């Protein structure tokens, strides 16, 4: 059996209790929600926390609430199944429902949470391996070693952000709410993700994510998510593309966001693509220009499955498909 290392387990029943436990035990303690990422990583000895603070019993953080003025609020413990099936998410934020439904497998979506999904550890072929494998190679910088095996001269780790919801949440302009023993704060999700695979989130060890809030869709907003992976189940994305566009009454694009994931340690927002789209109707030409911009911005490295040239070429293809899906999406009837 592939066993978990020993730890003490403390179940928290409120966010306040969770963060006071995290503060009491210091950096040796980690929060855990569904455990679908953390337990697998602990089995590979990527983490050996002395204490786990279980967030699952916190009933207050399991909600999904929509309001036309304040938008969508997702409790950190809402499961991926809840989000994929939620009528308000499907109606107002279809790309988010699509992304949640494409994650892993039904069993994992029943357990995995949105809070855990945005805090998903960054991934790399040299890192997501068992202890013997990593030891045989004398480890890598992200865990127990000195150099990056993918980019040996790099001062930072380039492991990829592999969350399917992260690029979608960023394209929708979501804000992340955090609680710590000293209070609460919120920040745009784009600032929550940092550009180093070893320190990929602006989260202090005694903070937890409590909710994620997305503004209500403005006017005729349409969205779509496309995911590239080797198998149509189980697999993490080797590319994710989220597209959100807003059209005016005449069909002209007035706002656009295109965000890539699994090509870098944090989601990559392609602002040049937005410039190619805004100001005219969505057409094969403007979508093609935006997809070219995505192709230039997506720079995959050799740390996931499939080759770099293939993944790079697919950035254009998947950006185009995501934008076509969004253009074709049924407008919201109010």
């Amino acid at each position: 059996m592939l066993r978990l290392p020993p730890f003490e387990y403390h179940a928290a029943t409120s966010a306040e209790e969770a963060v006071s436990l995290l503060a009491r035990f210091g950096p040796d303690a980690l929060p855990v929600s569904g455990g679908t990422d953390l337990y697998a990583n602990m089995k590979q000895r990527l983490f050996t926390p002395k204490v786990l603070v279980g967030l699952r019993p916190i009933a207050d953080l399991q909600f999904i609430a929509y309001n036309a003025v304040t938008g969508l609020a997702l409790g950190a413990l809402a499961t991926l199944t809840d989000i994929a099936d939620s009528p308000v998410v499907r109606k107002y934020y279809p790309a988010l429902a699509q992304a949640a439904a494409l994650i892993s497998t039904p069993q994992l979506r029943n357990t995995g949470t949105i809070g855990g999904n945005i805090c998903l550890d960054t991934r790399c072929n040299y890192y997501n391996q068992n202890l013997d494998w990593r030891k045989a190679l004398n480890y890598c910088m992200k865990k127990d070693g000195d150099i990056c095996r993918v980019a040996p001269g790099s001062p930072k780790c380039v492991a990829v952000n592999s969350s399917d919801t992260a690029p979608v949440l960023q394209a929708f302009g979501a804000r992340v709410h955090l609680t710590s023993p000293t209070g609460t704060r919120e920040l745009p999700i784009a600032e929550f993700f940092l550009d180093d695979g070893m320190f990929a989130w602006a989260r202090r060890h005694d903070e937890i994510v409590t909710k994620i809030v997305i503004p209500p869709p403005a006017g005729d907003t349409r969205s779509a998510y496309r995911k590239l992976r080797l198998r149509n189940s189980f697999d993490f994305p080797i590319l994710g593309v989220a597209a959100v566009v807003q059209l005016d009454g005449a069909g002209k694009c007035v706002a656009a966001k295109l965000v890539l994931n699994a090509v870098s340690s944090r989601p990559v927002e392609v602002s040049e693509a937005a410039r190619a789209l805004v100001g005219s109707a969505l057409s094969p030409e403007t979508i093609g220009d935006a997809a070219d911009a995505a192709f230039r911005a997506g720079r995959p490295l050799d740390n996931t499955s499939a080759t770099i040239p293939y993944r790079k070429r697919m950035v254009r293809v998947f950006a185009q498909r995501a934008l076509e899906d969004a253009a074709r999406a049924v407008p919201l009837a109010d």
Partner: protein
Amino acid sequence: MSIAPAKILASLSINGSVVECAFNPNKTLLEVLREDVGLTGTKHGCEMGHCGACTVIVDDLPVLSCLTLAVESIGHEIRTIEGVARDGVLHPVQRALAESGGAQCGYCTPGIIMSAVALLEQNPAPTREDVAQGLSGNLCRCTGYTKIIEAVENASAELRSAR
């Protein structure tokens, strides 16, 4: 140096019975079922979330027992493959799998059955696509899936006609 954390004494609700057991906090539900409770019908495959062999039903939802702690399962209704047949009578999903040749080596079968039973409870009239989606978290290296999907469709028809 460090002392191993104390064992937890707990009652788990498994297949409708209360089972008293003692386990360390780092034990998964899979390990406790197989090693402490003696229910070895739930299989261990990858133990990393990659195969679905360890699927059990917790509070009506299929989940992976290899990535769930036993301590997290206290207070929840756990169902395993041992609880699927009633009074010696196979569940229609089990019978259909046997009749259609949906089990070859059989290692994936308990997990497949748990996913299928949960699917049919939630959605009594699934389309073929719904069945494929419902089973998309269970790997089978033998059958090629076709017979399994047919078996679940047959079981769903049988369950509906029995209503």
